[in-house]
Protein backbone atom coordinates (compact mmCIF):
# COMPACT_ATOMS: atom_id res chain seq x y z
CA UNK A 1 0.00 0.00 0.00
CA UNK A 2 2.77 2.36 0.92
CA UNK A 3 4.23 3.80 -2.26
CA UNK A 4 7.49 4.66 -0.53
CA UNK A 5 8.52 1.24 0.69
CA UNK A 6 8.91 -0.01 -2.85
CA UNK A 7 12.24 1.77 -3.12
CA UNK A 8 13.24 1.44 0.52
CA UNK A 9 15.97 -1.08 -0.22
CA UNK A 10 17.73 1.28 -2.62
CA UNK A 11 19.31 4.00 -0.50
CA UNK A 12 21.42 6.49 -2.36
CA UNK A 13 19.44 6.54 -5.55
CA UNK A 14 15.97 7.79 -6.22
CA UNK A 15 15.92 6.71 -9.83
CA UNK A 16 14.99 3.11 -9.29
CA UNK A 17 11.42 2.77 -10.47
CA UNK A 18 8.95 1.90 -7.76
CA UNK A 19 6.48 -0.94 -8.12
CA UNK A 20 3.82 1.68 -8.80
CA UNK A 21 5.33 2.19 -12.23
CA UNK A 22 2.98 0.95 -14.93
CA UNK A 23 5.31 -1.20 -17.04
CA UNK A 24 8.38 -3.30 -16.33
CA UNK A 25 10.25 -1.46 -19.09
CA UNK A 26 9.98 1.75 -17.06
CA UNK A 27 13.55 2.76 -17.94
CA UNK A 28 12.17 3.87 -21.29
CA UNK A 29 9.50 6.05 -19.73
CA UNK A 30 10.59 9.69 -19.42
CA UNK A 31 10.62 11.23 -15.96
CA UNK A 32 8.37 14.00 -17.13
CA UNK A 33 6.11 14.38 -20.09
CA UNK A 34 4.06 17.52 -20.58
CA UNK A 35 1.86 17.57 -23.66
CA UNK A 36 -0.37 20.32 -24.96
CA UNK A 37 -0.62 21.93 -21.55
CA UNK A 38 -2.82 25.03 -21.51
CA UNK A 39 -4.12 26.89 -18.52
CA UNK A 40 -6.09 30.03 -17.77
CA UNK A 41 -6.46 31.41 -14.25
CA UNK A 42 -9.99 31.76 -12.87
CA UNK A 43 -9.77 35.53 -13.50
CA UNK A 44 -9.44 34.78 -17.23
CA UNK A 45 -5.73 35.46 -17.57
CA UNK A 46 -4.30 32.72 -19.77
CA UNK A 47 -0.82 31.73 -18.60
CA UNK A 48 0.01 28.69 -20.74
CA UNK A 49 -0.86 28.07 -24.38
CA UNK A 50 -0.08 24.44 -25.19
CA UNK A 51 3.29 23.52 -23.70
CA UNK A 52 5.07 20.32 -24.78
CA UNK A 53 8.10 19.19 -22.80
CA UNK A 54 9.69 15.78 -22.34
CA UNK A 55 12.47 15.23 -19.85
CA UNK A 56 14.19 11.82 -20.04
CA UNK A 57 15.22 10.15 -16.83
CA UNK A 58 18.44 11.53 -15.37
CA UNK A 59 18.54 14.69 -17.47
CA UNK A 60 18.97 18.16 -15.98
CA UNK A 61 16.97 20.83 -17.77
CA UNK A 62 16.86 24.57 -17.13
CA UNK A 63 13.55 26.34 -17.60
CA UNK A 64 14.34 29.90 -18.62
CA UNK A 65 12.11 32.82 -19.33
CA UNK A 66 11.32 36.39 -18.34
CA UNK A 67 9.11 37.27 -15.38
CA UNK A 68 5.48 36.53 -16.07
CA UNK A 69 6.27 33.94 -18.75
CA UNK A 70 4.28 31.25 -16.93
CA UNK A 71 7.16 29.35 -15.34
CA UNK A 72 5.58 29.10 -11.90
CA UNK A 73 2.23 28.16 -13.43
CA UNK A 74 3.94 25.33 -15.30
CA UNK A 75 5.71 24.14 -12.16
CA UNK A 76 2.46 24.09 -10.18
CA UNK A 77 0.97 21.78 -12.80
CA UNK A 78 3.75 19.25 -12.42
CA UNK A 79 2.51 17.99 -9.05
CA UNK A 80 -1.17 18.60 -9.56
CA UNK A 81 -1.57 21.79 -7.52
CA UNK A 82 -3.13 23.31 -10.62
CA UNK A 83 -5.29 21.20 -12.93
CA UNK A 84 -4.64 21.64 -16.67
CA UNK A 85 -7.28 23.40 -18.71
CA UNK A 86 -6.17 21.25 -21.63
CA UNK A 87 -3.36 18.75 -22.18
CA UNK A 88 -1.71 16.52 -19.62
CA UNK A 89 1.28 16.04 -17.33
CA UNK A 90 2.73 12.57 -16.91
CA UNK A 91 5.38 11.75 -14.32
CA UNK A 92 7.23 8.49 -14.96
CA UNK A 93 4.21 7.14 -16.77
CA UNK A 94 1.68 8.25 -14.18
CA UNK A 95 -0.77 10.95 -15.21
CA UNK A 96 -0.97 13.85 -12.75
CA UNK A 97 -4.46 14.22 -11.39
CA UNK A 98 -7.07 13.22 -8.89
CA UNK A 99 -6.83 9.47 -8.29
CA UNK A 100 -3.10 9.38 -7.48
CA UNK A 101 -2.31 12.90 -6.37
CA UNK A 102 -0.32 11.70 -3.33
CA UNK A 103 1.97 9.54 -5.47
CA UNK A 104 2.45 12.35 -8.01
CA UNK A 105 3.41 14.75 -5.24
CA UNK A 106 5.94 12.26 -3.92
CA UNK A 107 7.40 11.75 -7.41
CA UNK A 108 7.74 15.47 -8.11
CA UNK A 109 9.86 17.13 -5.44
CA UNK A 110 9.40 20.89 -5.67
CA UNK A 111 11.87 23.11 -3.83
CA UNK A 112 10.25 26.53 -3.52
CA UNK A 113 12.14 29.76 -3.75
CA UNK A 114 11.81 30.91 -0.14
CA UNK A 115 13.03 28.23 2.29
CA UNK A 116 10.96 29.89 5.00
CA UNK A 117 7.87 28.83 3.08
CA UNK A 118 9.17 25.34 2.57
CA UNK A 119 10.41 24.67 6.09
CA UNK A 120 7.39 24.97 8.32
CA UNK A 121 8.09 22.54 11.16
CA UNK A 122 9.85 23.45 14.43
CA UNK A 123 12.98 21.39 13.75
CA UNK A 124 14.91 20.33 10.66
CA UNK A 125 14.35 16.66 11.48
CA UNK A 126 10.57 17.01 11.73
CA UNK A 127 10.48 19.00 8.54
CA UNK A 128 12.38 16.42 6.53
CA UNK A 129 10.18 13.72 8.04
CA UNK A 130 6.98 15.50 7.02
CA UNK A 131 6.69 14.19 3.46
CA UNK A 132 7.54 10.53 4.11
CA UNK A 133 5.40 10.55 7.28
CA UNK A 134 2.47 11.96 5.33
CA UNK A 135 2.95 9.04 2.94
CA UNK A 136 2.70 6.60 5.83
CA UNK A 137 6.30 5.86 6.80
CA UNK A 138 6.83 5.35 10.54
CA UNK A 139 9.41 4.51 13.21
CA UNK A 140 12.95 3.41 12.48
CA UNK A 141 12.35 3.40 8.73
CA UNK A 142 11.27 7.04 8.88
CA UNK A 143 14.29 7.96 11.00
CA UNK A 144 16.59 6.24 8.51
CA UNK A 145 14.98 8.04 5.61
CA UNK A 146 15.38 11.42 7.31
CA UNK A 147 18.99 10.72 8.15
CA UNK A 148 19.75 9.60 4.62
CA UNK A 149 18.23 12.74 3.09
CA UNK A 150 20.05 15.06 5.49
CA UNK A 151 23.29 13.14 4.92
CA UNK A 152 22.98 13.69 1.17
CA UNK A 153 22.78 17.45 1.57
CA UNK A 154 25.44 17.49 4.30
CA UNK A 155 23.12 18.73 7.03
CA UNK A 156 22.84 15.64 9.24
CA UNK A 157 24.49 17.31 12.22
CA UNK A 158 21.88 20.08 12.20
CA UNK A 159 18.88 17.75 12.46
CA UNK A 160 17.71 19.10 15.82
CA UNK A 161 18.08 22.78 15.04
CA UNK A 162 15.24 25.12 14.28
CA UNK A 163 15.12 26.15 10.59
CA UNK A 164 15.18 29.86 11.46
CA UNK A 165 18.50 29.41 13.26
CA UNK A 166 20.25 28.20 10.09
CA UNK A 167 21.98 30.33 7.48
CA UNK A 168 20.12 30.95 4.23
CA UNK A 169 22.31 28.51 2.30
CA UNK A 170 21.80 25.83 4.94
CA UNK A 171 18.05 26.41 4.84
CA UNK A 172 18.01 25.91 1.10
CA UNK A 173 19.96 22.66 1.44
CA UNK A 174 17.49 21.46 4.07
CA UNK A 175 14.66 22.41 1.71
CA UNK A 176 16.26 20.12 -0.89
CA UNK A 177 16.48 17.38 1.76
CA UNK A 178 12.77 17.70 2.54
CA UNK A 179 11.91 16.59 -0.99
CA UNK A 180 14.79 14.09 -1.31
CA UNK A 181 13.29 12.30 1.70
CA UNK A 182 10.36 11.34 -0.53
CA UNK A 183 12.75 9.77 -3.08
CA UNK A 184 11.37 11.82 -5.96
CA UNK A 185 11.47 10.89 -9.63
CA UNK A 186 12.20 14.48 -10.58
CA UNK A 187 13.54 17.40 -8.59
CA UNK A 188 12.04 20.79 -9.46
CA UNK A 189 14.04 23.75 -8.22
CA UNK A 190 12.50 27.23 -8.25
CA UNK A 191 15.26 29.84 -8.45
CA UNK A 192 17.72 27.70 -6.47
CA UNK A 193 20.54 30.25 -6.52
CA UNK A 194 18.53 33.31 -5.44
CA UNK A 195 19.77 35.08 -2.30
CA UNK A 196 22.77 32.78 -1.95
CA UNK A 197 26.28 34.10 -1.46
CA UNK A 198 28.81 32.81 -4.03
CA UNK A 199 30.11 30.05 -1.74
CA UNK A 200 26.64 28.78 -0.85
CA UNK A 201 25.72 29.01 -4.54
CA UNK A 202 28.66 26.79 -5.47
CA UNK A 203 27.94 24.35 -2.63
CA UNK A 204 24.37 24.00 -3.88
CA UNK A 205 25.65 23.39 -7.41
CA UNK A 206 27.96 20.64 -6.13
CA UNK A 207 25.02 19.15 -4.28
CA UNK A 208 22.72 19.18 -7.33
CA UNK A 209 25.45 17.57 -9.47
CA UNK A 210 26.00 14.87 -6.86
CA UNK A 211 22.33 13.83 -6.75
CA UNK A 212 22.17 12.06 -10.13
CA UNK A 213 18.48 12.87 -10.36
CA UNK A 214 16.24 14.20 -13.08
CA UNK A 215 16.19 17.96 -12.47
CA UNK A 216 14.02 20.76 -13.80
CA UNK A 217 15.49 24.06 -12.70
CA UNK A 218 13.58 27.33 -13.03
CA UNK A 219 16.10 30.15 -13.00
CA UNK A 220 17.11 33.63 -14.08
CA UNK A 221 20.71 32.83 -13.21
CA UNK A 222 21.93 31.94 -16.72
CA UNK A 223 25.54 31.02 -15.80
CA UNK A 224 24.08 28.68 -13.18
CA UNK A 225 21.88 27.07 -15.84
CA UNK A 226 24.92 26.68 -18.07
CA UNK A 227 26.96 25.11 -15.28
CA UNK A 228 24.31 22.63 -14.17
CA UNK A 229 21.99 21.89 -17.07
CA UNK A 230 23.19 20.53 -20.42
CA UNK A 231 19.73 21.32 -21.87
CA UNK A 232 17.54 24.41 -21.58
CA UNK A 233 14.06 25.37 -22.64
CA UNK A 234 12.78 28.94 -22.93
CA UNK A 235 9.22 29.72 -21.91
CA UNK A 236 7.89 33.06 -23.10
CA UNK A 237 4.29 34.30 -22.97
CA UNK A 238 3.02 30.84 -22.18
CA UNK A 239 4.72 28.96 -25.05
CA UNK A 240 8.00 27.08 -25.28
CA UNK A 241 9.96 29.09 -27.83
CA UNK A 242 13.28 27.28 -27.70
CA UNK A 243 14.66 23.93 -26.64
CA UNK A 244 18.29 22.88 -27.03
CA UNK A 245 21.76 22.66 -25.53
CA UNK A 246 22.12 25.45 -22.95
CA UNK A 247 25.35 26.78 -24.46
CA UNK A 248 23.74 27.10 -27.89
CA UNK A 249 20.65 28.90 -26.57
CA UNK A 250 22.66 31.32 -24.46
CA UNK A 251 24.89 32.12 -27.44
CA UNK A 252 21.90 32.95 -29.65
CA UNK A 253 21.86 36.72 -29.32
CA UNK A 254 18.61 37.18 -31.27
CA UNK A 255 16.70 34.63 -29.21
CA UNK A 256 18.01 36.04 -25.97
CA UNK A 257 17.04 39.59 -26.85
CA UNK A 258 13.60 38.59 -28.10
CA UNK A 259 12.72 37.02 -24.75
CA UNK A 260 14.28 39.46 -22.31
CA UNK A 261 17.05 37.08 -21.30
CA UNK A 262 20.32 38.76 -20.42
CA UNK A 263 23.71 37.42 -19.50
CA UNK A 264 25.69 39.08 -16.72
CA UNK A 265 28.14 41.75 -17.86
CA UNK A 266 31.25 40.28 -19.43
CA UNK A 267 29.96 36.72 -19.43
CA UNK A 268 30.53 34.77 -22.64
CA UNK A 269 28.75 31.39 -22.65
CA UNK A 270 31.11 30.12 -25.36
CA UNK A 271 34.16 30.71 -23.21
CA UNK A 272 33.44 27.90 -20.73
CA UNK A 273 33.47 24.14 -21.00
CA UNK A 274 30.11 22.70 -20.11
CA UNK A 275 28.69 19.25 -19.34
CA UNK A 276 27.42 17.44 -22.43
CA UNK A 277 23.77 16.54 -22.82
Amino acid at each position, binding site marked *: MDPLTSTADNPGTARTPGTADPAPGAAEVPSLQVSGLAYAYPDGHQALFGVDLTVPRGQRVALLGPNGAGKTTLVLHLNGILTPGAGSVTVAGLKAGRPHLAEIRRRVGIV*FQDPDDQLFM*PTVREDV*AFGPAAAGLRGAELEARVHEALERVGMAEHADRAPHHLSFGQRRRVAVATVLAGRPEILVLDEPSSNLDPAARRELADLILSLELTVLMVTHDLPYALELCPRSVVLSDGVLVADGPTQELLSDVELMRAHRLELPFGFDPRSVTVPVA
Partner: protein
Amino acid sequence: MGAGHAHKLYKHGHSPVHALPAHCKLAAVFCFVLLVVATPREAVWAFGAYTLLLAAVAAVSRVPPRHLLTRMAIEVPFVAFAVLLPFVAEGERITVWGLTLSESGLWGAFNVLAKGTLGVAASVLLASTTRLDELLLGLARLRMPPLLCQIATFMVRYADVISEEMRRMRTARLSRGFEARGPRHWGVLAKSAGSLFIRSYERGERVHLAMLSRGYTGTMPPALGDGPAGRAEWARSAALPLTALAICLLGWTL
Protein backbone atom coordinates in the same frame (compact mmCIF):
# COMPACT_ATOMS: atom_id res chain seq x y z
CA MET B 1 8.45 42.49 20.82
CA GLY B 2 8.70 39.37 22.87
CA ALA B 3 7.21 36.95 20.39
CA GLY B 4 10.51 36.10 18.78
CA HIS B 5 12.16 35.41 22.06
CA ALA B 6 9.78 32.83 23.41
CA HIS B 7 12.53 30.23 23.32
CA LYS B 8 14.64 32.40 25.62
CA LEU B 9 12.73 30.78 28.47
CA TYR B 10 14.51 27.50 27.94
CA LYS B 11 17.67 26.77 29.89
CA HIS B 12 19.63 23.95 28.36
CA GLY B 13 20.63 21.22 30.80
CA HIS B 14 20.88 17.50 31.47
CA SER B 15 19.12 17.21 34.83
CA PRO B 16 16.57 14.50 35.67
CA VAL B 17 13.85 17.13 35.21
CA HIS B 18 15.09 17.97 31.70
CA ALA B 19 15.16 14.28 30.84
CA LEU B 20 11.49 13.61 31.64
CA PRO B 21 9.16 13.38 28.62
CA ALA B 22 7.34 16.65 27.95
CA HIS B 23 3.85 15.22 28.26
CA CYS B 24 4.63 13.80 31.74
CA LYS B 25 5.88 17.21 32.85
CA LEU B 26 2.88 18.98 31.34
CA ALA B 27 0.45 16.66 33.10
CA ALA B 28 2.35 17.05 36.38
CA VAL B 29 2.36 20.86 36.22
CA PHE B 30 -1.30 20.96 35.23
CA CYS B 31 -2.32 18.77 38.17
CA PHE B 32 -0.08 20.77 40.50
CA VAL B 33 -1.72 24.05 39.49
CA LEU B 34 -5.21 22.56 39.91
CA LEU B 35 -4.32 21.36 43.41
CA VAL B 36 -2.84 24.73 44.36
CA VAL B 37 -6.02 26.46 43.21
CA ALA B 38 -8.13 23.96 45.15
CA THR B 39 -6.30 24.67 48.44
CA PRO B 40 -8.27 26.79 50.94
CA ARG B 41 -6.72 30.23 51.25
CA GLU B 42 -6.78 30.11 55.05
CA ALA B 43 -4.20 27.28 55.03
CA VAL B 44 -1.33 29.75 54.72
CA TRP B 45 1.27 27.14 55.65
CA ALA B 46 0.25 24.99 52.66
CA PHE B 47 1.40 27.68 50.23
CA GLY B 48 4.76 27.75 52.00
CA ALA B 49 4.93 24.00 51.54
CA TYR B 50 4.12 24.33 47.83
CA THR B 51 6.89 26.90 47.47
CA LEU B 52 9.37 24.53 49.11
CA LEU B 53 8.18 21.76 46.81
CA LEU B 54 8.80 23.86 43.69
CA ALA B 55 12.16 25.00 45.08
CA ALA B 56 13.11 21.35 45.48
CA VAL B 57 12.18 20.61 41.85
CA ALA B 58 14.13 23.70 40.74
CA ALA B 59 17.14 22.48 42.72
CA VAL B 60 16.98 19.07 41.03
CA SER B 61 16.65 20.73 37.61
CA ARG B 62 19.78 22.83 38.32
CA VAL B 63 18.20 25.86 36.67
CA PRO B 64 19.76 28.92 38.35
CA PRO B 65 17.23 30.65 40.68
CA ARG B 66 18.05 33.95 38.99
CA HIS B 67 16.90 32.58 35.63
CA LEU B 68 13.57 31.53 37.15
CA LEU B 69 12.97 34.66 39.23
CA THR B 70 13.65 37.14 36.42
CA ARG B 71 11.28 35.27 34.11
CA MET B 72 8.56 35.29 36.74
CA ALA B 73 8.36 39.07 36.28
CA ILE B 74 5.72 38.38 33.63
CA GLU B 75 3.28 38.11 36.54
CA VAL B 76 3.66 41.76 37.55
CA PRO B 77 0.84 43.25 35.41
CA PHE B 78 -1.57 40.71 36.84
CA VAL B 79 -0.55 41.53 40.39
CA ALA B 80 -1.89 45.07 40.01
CA PHE B 81 -5.43 43.76 40.28
CA ALA B 82 -4.62 41.82 43.45
CA VAL B 83 -3.12 44.92 45.06
CA LEU B 84 -6.33 46.87 44.43
CA LEU B 85 -8.57 44.26 46.02
CA PRO B 86 -8.09 45.23 49.71
CA PHE B 87 -9.06 48.82 48.88
CA VAL B 88 -12.16 48.15 46.86
CA ALA B 89 -13.62 44.97 48.34
CA GLU B 90 -16.68 45.08 50.64
CA GLY B 91 -16.91 43.67 54.17
CA GLU B 92 -15.33 44.24 57.52
CA ARG B 93 -12.58 46.89 57.56
CA ILE B 94 -9.38 46.58 59.54
CA THR B 95 -6.57 49.07 59.97
CA VAL B 96 -3.08 48.15 58.84
CA TRP B 97 -0.28 50.75 58.97
CA GLY B 98 -2.86 53.49 59.15
CA LEU B 99 -4.79 52.27 56.08
CA THR B 100 -8.37 51.08 56.34
CA LEU B 101 -8.58 47.87 54.36
CA SER B 102 -11.20 45.26 53.73
CA GLU B 103 -10.42 42.02 55.49
CA SER B 104 -12.00 39.82 52.83
CA GLY B 105 -10.19 41.92 50.23
CA LEU B 106 -6.90 41.18 51.92
CA TRP B 107 -7.65 37.47 51.90
CA GLY B 108 -8.69 37.74 48.27
CA ALA B 109 -5.48 39.52 47.37
CA PHE B 110 -3.42 36.92 49.22
CA ASN B 111 -5.36 34.17 47.47
CA VAL B 112 -4.77 35.59 43.98
CA LEU B 113 -1.14 36.45 44.67
CA ALA B 114 -0.14 33.15 46.27
CA LYS B 115 -1.92 30.90 43.77
CA GLY B 116 -0.94 33.04 40.79
CA THR B 117 2.70 33.16 41.79
CA LEU B 118 2.86 29.41 42.36
CA GLY B 119 1.22 28.79 38.99
CA VAL B 120 3.61 31.12 37.20
CA ALA B 121 6.59 29.60 39.02
CA ALA B 122 5.56 26.09 38.02
CA SER B 123 5.03 27.15 34.38
CA VAL B 124 8.36 28.98 34.21
CA LEU B 125 10.05 25.92 35.65
CA LEU B 126 8.37 23.77 33.01
CA ALA B 127 9.36 26.13 30.20
CA SER B 128 12.93 26.36 31.51
CA THR B 129 13.41 22.61 31.41
CA THR B 130 11.48 21.75 28.24
CA ARG B 131 12.19 22.89 24.67
CA LEU B 132 9.31 24.53 22.82
CA ASP B 133 9.07 21.84 20.19
CA GLU B 134 9.04 19.18 22.93
CA LEU B 135 6.20 21.04 24.64
CA LEU B 136 4.21 21.00 21.40
CA LEU B 137 4.89 17.29 21.01
CA GLY B 138 3.83 16.79 24.61
CA LEU B 139 0.56 18.60 24.02
CA ALA B 140 -0.08 16.44 20.97
CA ARG B 141 0.61 13.29 23.02
CA LEU B 142 -1.84 14.51 25.65
CA ARG B 143 -4.47 14.55 22.89
CA MET B 144 -4.81 18.27 22.55
CA PRO B 145 -7.02 18.83 19.46
CA PRO B 146 -4.72 18.48 16.41
CA LEU B 147 -5.89 21.76 14.93
CA LEU B 148 -4.78 23.68 18.03
CA CYS B 149 -1.46 21.81 17.99
CA GLN B 150 -0.91 22.77 14.36
CA ILE B 151 -1.72 26.41 15.02
CA ALA B 152 0.70 26.48 17.96
CA THR B 153 3.40 24.75 15.91
CA PHE B 154 3.12 27.29 13.10
CA MET B 155 3.08 30.14 15.58
CA VAL B 156 6.34 28.94 17.08
CA ARG B 157 7.88 28.43 13.65
CA TYR B 158 6.85 31.75 12.16
CA ALA B 159 7.01 34.13 15.13
CA ASP B 160 10.66 34.82 14.34
CA VAL B 161 10.10 35.16 10.60
CA ILE B 162 7.29 37.65 11.09
CA SER B 163 9.03 39.70 13.78
CA GLU B 164 12.06 39.83 11.48
CA GLU B 165 9.80 41.08 8.68
CA MET B 166 8.39 43.69 11.06
CA ARG B 167 11.90 44.79 11.97
CA ARG B 168 12.81 45.18 8.28
CA MET B 169 9.71 47.29 7.68
CA ARG B 170 10.65 49.47 10.63
CA THR B 171 14.19 49.88 9.28
CA ALA B 172 12.74 50.83 5.90
CA ARG B 173 10.51 53.45 7.55
CA LEU B 174 13.38 54.87 9.57
CA SER B 175 15.64 54.95 6.51
CA ARG B 176 13.15 57.17 4.79
CA GLY B 177 13.10 59.59 7.66
CA PHE B 178 9.93 58.47 9.37
CA GLU B 179 9.67 58.43 13.14
CA ALA B 180 6.40 57.94 14.94
CA ARG B 181 6.10 60.96 17.21
CA GLY B 182 2.41 61.23 17.88
CA PRO B 183 -1.12 60.41 16.85
CA ARG B 184 -0.52 62.11 13.50
CA HIS B 185 1.78 59.24 12.60
CA TRP B 186 -0.44 56.44 13.72
CA GLY B 187 -1.87 56.14 10.23
CA VAL B 188 1.51 55.06 8.91
CA LEU B 189 1.91 52.51 11.69
CA ALA B 190 -1.57 51.18 11.02
CA LYS B 191 -0.74 50.78 7.34
CA SER B 192 2.47 48.96 8.25
CA ALA B 193 0.49 46.63 10.48
CA GLY B 194 -1.97 46.07 7.64
CA SER B 195 0.70 45.23 5.11
CA LEU B 196 2.40 42.97 7.63
CA PHE B 197 -0.91 41.14 7.94
CA ILE B 198 -1.22 40.81 4.16
CA ARG B 199 2.36 39.59 3.86
CA SER B 200 1.80 37.02 6.59
CA TYR B 201 -1.44 35.93 4.97
CA GLU B 202 0.30 35.47 1.62
CA ARG B 203 3.12 33.60 3.30
CA GLY B 204 0.47 31.37 4.81
CA GLU B 205 -0.79 30.59 1.33
CA ARG B 206 2.72 29.79 0.09
CA VAL B 207 3.38 27.56 3.09
CA HIS B 208 0.10 25.76 2.44
CA LEU B 209 1.20 25.23 -1.17
CA ALA B 210 4.53 23.80 0.00
CA MET B 211 2.69 21.50 2.40
CA LEU B 212 0.33 20.26 -0.31
CA SER B 213 3.34 19.61 -2.54
CA ARG B 214 4.71 17.30 0.09
CA GLY B 215 1.59 15.26 0.52
CA TYR B 216 -0.35 17.18 3.20
CA THR B 217 -3.96 16.07 3.23
CA GLY B 218 -5.32 17.94 6.22
CA THR B 219 -3.78 16.06 9.12
CA MET B 220 -0.23 16.28 10.38
CA PRO B 221 1.66 12.98 10.38
CA PRO B 222 2.40 11.68 13.88
CA ALA B 223 5.50 13.11 15.44
CA LEU B 224 8.94 11.58 15.44
CA GLY B 225 10.86 10.71 18.54
CA ASP B 226 10.45 8.52 21.57
CA GLY B 227 7.13 6.80 21.93
CA PRO B 228 4.86 6.79 24.97
CA ALA B 229 6.55 7.34 28.33
CA GLY B 230 7.47 4.41 30.52
CA ARG B 231 5.98 3.74 33.93
CA ALA B 232 9.13 4.94 35.71
CA GLU B 233 8.96 8.30 33.95
CA TRP B 234 5.31 8.78 34.84
CA ALA B 235 6.10 7.80 38.45
CA ARG B 236 8.92 10.32 38.66
CA SER B 237 6.75 13.06 37.17
CA ALA B 238 3.94 12.19 39.57
CA ALA B 239 6.12 13.06 42.57
CA LEU B 240 5.22 16.75 42.28
CA PRO B 241 1.41 16.49 41.99
CA LEU B 242 1.19 13.64 44.54
CA THR B 243 3.07 15.62 47.19
CA ALA B 244 0.88 18.60 46.31
CA LEU B 245 -2.20 16.40 46.73
CA ALA B 246 -1.08 15.47 50.25
CA ILE B 247 -0.55 19.14 51.12
CA CYS B 248 -3.92 20.10 49.64
CA LEU B 249 -5.76 17.40 51.60
CA LEU B 250 -3.99 18.45 54.80
CA GLY B 251 -4.95 22.03 54.03
CA TRP B 252 -8.62 21.05 54.02
CA THR B 253 -8.53 18.81 57.11
CA LEU B 254 -6.19 20.67 59.49
